């Protein structure tokens, strides 16, 4: 047991616990928000686990999640557009908290890794993660003016 795994345990327990509660109950809009947050919070957890097990190979998992997580949310945004159109969910507080967790974790890991290609890979993951989740969140809340839904 080391500090990294402890931090990962906390992030995963809080992240998975709250998003499971959010995705299993309540109106449809809140559920999609929770699904988006689950990828946004699990990805930093996976990065911390990779550092905790001192295996750089595990970073690929976080890379794939950062790429495909927002894609999954966009699938729901696209195919549930009719149901979500009436009252689009607004959840900027949790979204920014998740983005903050992602940023902090990536920054700390970059500081530990030191300059090099591994650090750039971490930065790529961080950019994909935060950018993708903020965009998915904005698409979800209907924050793009002048868009006609099909």
């Amino acid at each position: 047991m080391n500090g990294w795994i402890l931090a990962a345990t906390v992030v995963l327990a809080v992240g998975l616990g709250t998003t499971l509660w959010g995705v299993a109950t309540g109106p449809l809009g809140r559920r999609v928000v929770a699904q988006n947050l689950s990828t946004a919070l699990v990805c930093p957890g996976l990065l911390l686990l990779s550092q905790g097990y001192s295996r750089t190979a595990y970073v690929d998992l976080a890379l794939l999640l950062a790429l495909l997580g927002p894609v999954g949310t966009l699938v729901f945004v696209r195919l549930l557009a009719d149901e979500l159109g009436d009252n689009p969910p607004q959840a900027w507080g949790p979204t920014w908290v998740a983005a903050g967790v992602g940023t902090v974790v990536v920054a700390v890991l970059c500081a530990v890794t030191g300059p090099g290609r591994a650090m750039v890979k971490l930065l790529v993951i961080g950019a994909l993660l935060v950018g993708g989740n903020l965009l998915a969140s904005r698409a979800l809340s209907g924050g793009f003016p002048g868009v006609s839904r099909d």
Partner: protein
Amino acid sequence: MTAVMHVLPYLVAAYVFLVGAYGLATSRNLIHAVGCLAVCQSATYVLLLAVGYRDGGTAPVFSDIRPGSRPVVDPVVQALTLTDIVVGATVTALLLALTVQIAKRHGTVDPDELRELRG
């Protein structure tokens, strides 16, 4: 704690399987039933990987560690689980295709209504 930990993953696998089977038996919508079958399949992944785990072990992948420097977990069950996930995904796709076909031919995806139609 340790005594519980020795069986907890197996019990979780059994629980997930039973919950999926319950959902499958009581489902009123074929698409929901396909989702429940996916839950049942995830129980098999949990069971297989739990059997192969070794305390303090790491993944049997030697791209970033020297072979023999750390104990590794069982790769055979991991390969089996990989096959399991592929087969699970294709089964889901095939069953969803069947469901779409049933909806087209009979106009419903409720198994009880389908039984009445046939009888």
